[in-house]
């Protein structure tokens, strides 16, 4: 490592001008990244981590943003803060390059990936011909593990993992001194995430590029970064070698951040530490049972379930679920895991009576409910007993309704309580999920993501359903909020004796929360069993592969 850092940030302060006045996003952050080094920037949403990344490329809109402090590049110490646009243009993509989170959004849908990568090269090598640039792009694609022939494909023809590889190829084609990777693998399935992280590390160490890895995921940091900087509310809390930081964090926030995400070593069912409550005691006794009460019988089940999605025009229908049989017993939590496209959400929709099965039996409490998707009467009756909690707490609450309207709507439909009683029940529910009656008259936009998810849970609980189907209920949340919501669900499950179908792509969360696990792959059931059996002695290679990919 050379004496001067590749990237030297001092007292960086970024302020956004908003209608309500200036809002500081980053406050006096300083750090260095040496050539060949990987520095992790960890923090939750709003911590300013992405803002630092954008500032390092001078990509902020100068009309709305004030950047102060110093960002210097390389041996010459080229200053980026307040540099003229013409100078920044020469630096962006050649000396500092960026890999963005969502490759589908980050790549232009209108141009082939080859053309987009070639453009990145030609901008900084204007004398290169189009053909030579395209050849270089194809070679770079080969380097990231994509066949050169795919260069003439548009992004929508590639898988998520390939798209992210193409974005990496685009960032690295000019051999930048500094690579900024903003949540480069967050949108990917665990196995693909693993591969892509390995690729980034390999290329980065090969070329001696300094890398700033921005992530919310402590697991990614542990697997990738030499050093780590923890950010909260725009301030640097703690910095150090990753290993030391993860094993003996000094700041309580770091400790909470690390502890909040369950790992494959966390004792299942225990309360997770949160930022406000770093050493939690359970409201009720921890659930350490491994075998559910089998004798209480089956609550919901599908048998030999097939669901086809109709094909485009004459194309053959696409099978999403291919003959799956599984059940949820009374009082148990069944975890449904699998990668995207494995059919987990489709099964949930069938059990909720929202999607008609192509064939197979669907039963709730012994009753055939396969026709619920086409019968309004049956679906309405079913919704008295089966309620849903959704992934995205921003999209799943009507922004024009008050919390009272949101929580009392199921009561209005399913009970004959009068308005005053409904209001009283809504207040109770809010208390139960850790909010208060004073929130009743507010609208969803006044709440944080975690609070909204609590409102969604209160709505699902309103009619005292017998089964709750939770489809990725914590995957859109920050880890410390995820811990709070998981703690809440664990408490409610004991207090209300709930049965749950819990869908997640996060194996550590599933292990922590569920009694029994069903593993799906491409619409088929790969493995089903008790939590400890599946995690400690997986019987199929696919499950083993999934487990190996957990960071």
């Amino acid at each position, binding site marked *: 490592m050379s004496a001067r850092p590749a990237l030297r940030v001092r007292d960086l302060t970024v302020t956004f001008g908003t209608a309500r006045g200036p809002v500081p996003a980053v406050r006096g952050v300083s750090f260095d990244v040496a050539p060949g080094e990987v520095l992790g920037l960890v923090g939750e949403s709003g911590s300013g981590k992405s803002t630092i990344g954008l500032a390092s*490329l001078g*990509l902020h809109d100068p*009309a709305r943003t004030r950047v102060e402090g110093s960002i210097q590049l390389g041996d010459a110490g080229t200053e980026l803060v307040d540099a003229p*646009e013409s100078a920044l*243009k*020469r*630096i*962006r*993509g*050649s000396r500092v*390059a*960026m890999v*963005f989170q*969502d490759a589908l*959004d*980050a*790549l*232009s*849908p*209108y141009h082939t990936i080859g053309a987009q990568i070639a*453009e*990145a090269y030609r*901008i*900084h090598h204007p004398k290169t011909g189009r053909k030579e640039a395209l050849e270089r792009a194809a070679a770079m694609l080969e380097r990231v593990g994509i066949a050169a022939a795919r260069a003439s494909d*548009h992004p*929508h023809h590639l898988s998520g993992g390939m798209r992210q590889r193409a*974005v990496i190829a*685009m960032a690295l084609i000019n051999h930048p001194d500094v690579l900024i990777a903003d949540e480069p693998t967050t949108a990917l399935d665990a196995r693909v995430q693993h591969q892509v992280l390995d690729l980034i590390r390999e290329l980065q160490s090969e070329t001696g590029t300094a890398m700033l890895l921005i992530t919310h995921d402590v697991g990614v940091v542990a697997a990738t970064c030499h050093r780590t900087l923890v950010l909260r509310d725009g301030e640097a809390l703690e910095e150090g070698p990753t290993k030391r930081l993860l094993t003996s964090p000094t700041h309580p926030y770091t400790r909470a951040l690390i502890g909040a995400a369950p790992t494959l070593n966390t004792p299942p069912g225990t309360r997770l530490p949160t930022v406000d409550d770093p050493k939690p005691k359970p409201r009720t006794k921890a659930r350490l049972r491994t075998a559910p009460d089998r004798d209480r019988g089956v609550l919901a089940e599908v048998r030999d379930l097939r669901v086809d999605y109709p094909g*485009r*025009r004459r194309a053959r229908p696409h099978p999403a679920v291919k003959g799956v049989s599984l059940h949820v017993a009374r009082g148990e939590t069944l975890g449904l895991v699998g990668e995207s496209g494995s059919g987990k959400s489709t099964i949930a929709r069938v059990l909720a009576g929202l999607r008609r099965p192509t064939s197979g039996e669907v039963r709730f409490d012994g009753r055939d409910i396969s026709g619920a998707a086409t019968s309004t009467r049956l679906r309405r009756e079913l919704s008295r007993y089966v309620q849903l909690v959704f992934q995205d707490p921003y999209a799943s609450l009507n922004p024009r309704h008050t919390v009272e309207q949101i929580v009392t709507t199921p009561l209005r439909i399913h009970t004959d309580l009068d308005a005053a009683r409904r209001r009283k029940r809504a207040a109770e529910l809010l208390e139960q999920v850790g909010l208060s009656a004073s929130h009743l008259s507010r609208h969803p936009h006044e709440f944080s993501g975690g609070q909204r998810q609590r409102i969604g849970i209160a709505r699902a609980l309103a009619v005292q359903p017998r089964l709750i189907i939770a489809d990725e209920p914590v995957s859109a949340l920050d880890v410390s909020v995820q811990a709070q919501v998981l703690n809440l669900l664990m408490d409610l499950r004991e207090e209300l004796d709930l049965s749950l179908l819990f869908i997640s792509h996060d194996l550590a969360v599933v292990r922590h929360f569920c009694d029994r696990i069903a593993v799906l792959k491409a619409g088929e059931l790969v493995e089903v069993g008790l939590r400890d059996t599946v995690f400690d002695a997986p019987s199929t290679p696919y499950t083993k592969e999934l487990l190996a990919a957990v960071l």
Partner: protein
Amino acid sequence: MTRYLIKRVAQAVAVLLAISATAFGLFYAAPSDPALIACGPKCTSAQLAAVRTSMGLDQPIVSQFTDYVGGIVTGRTIADVDGTPIPCPAPCLGYSYSLHQPVLAAIEDRLPVTVSIAVGALAVILVLGVGSGLAAALRRGRATDRLLSGFNLLGASVQIYFLGYVLQLLLVYSTGLFAPPRYVPFTTQPAQWALGLLLPWLVLGFVNAAVYARLTRSQMLETMHHGYVRTARAKGLGTLRTHLKYTARGAAGPLVQLLGLEVGALLGGAFITETVFGLGGVGKLAVDAVNGNDLPTVVGTVLLAAFFVVVFVAVADLVVAWLDPRVRFA
């Protein structure tokens, strides 16, 4: 692709058939008698019957309609009021007894005027509408943006006949800055052609530009938030080039669709503009035909307008598909 084209053509034919049948039926139901108009006020009832027979009006409406549609495909011979046969080769749109010429010939006489007006107005729409929308989006929130949106609002709220007459008075008759509006064929004197139509172009384009300016601006602003625009800038592409290459491409879809409709509508005739500036185009032909109960001309011009709209909407769809590879023909 072939399947798509066949489907599209079949759709177009169905639309045109439905429109011509409706126009036909409406005029058949109207109280005035085309034979009486063709024959004149001093007609005896025997003459009237003869005229009716020669015009084919004694036939049932369905066979009149099939004759008409057949004529478009194969051509036919039409009898004049006095029974003299007039050959009408395909595509025969009927014979106007008021104008004493085949409808197609009447349209062909006036179509160059309409096409000339449409082409120029479209150019003005593109420059004033799309251009100012782009400029406003790139300078959003600043003086340029506010100025342009005010200017466009003015255009949207003023009427062609008002603006047309006022500008003629000010620019042509009072100051002589502009040549008096007139139509000179492009093929004979291109410069005179442009000078004579400049004022109609500006007025028609200006009045229609606001919609495009607004749509362009809002589409651009929406597309700017996409990650690929940021990616392009992170590659080192300049702001302007990024927006022209990436943002504009993402914003173009709805604009192209709307422009397709606009071109079709403009080619169908711009009656108000033609009237204000005293230009005899297809729009004026159509309105005169309606006023004069000239059924064949009405149906012919309606059909022509529908044809242009159908064709240019299809062209717009093809352009959108070419711009966005994710669009599939279905």
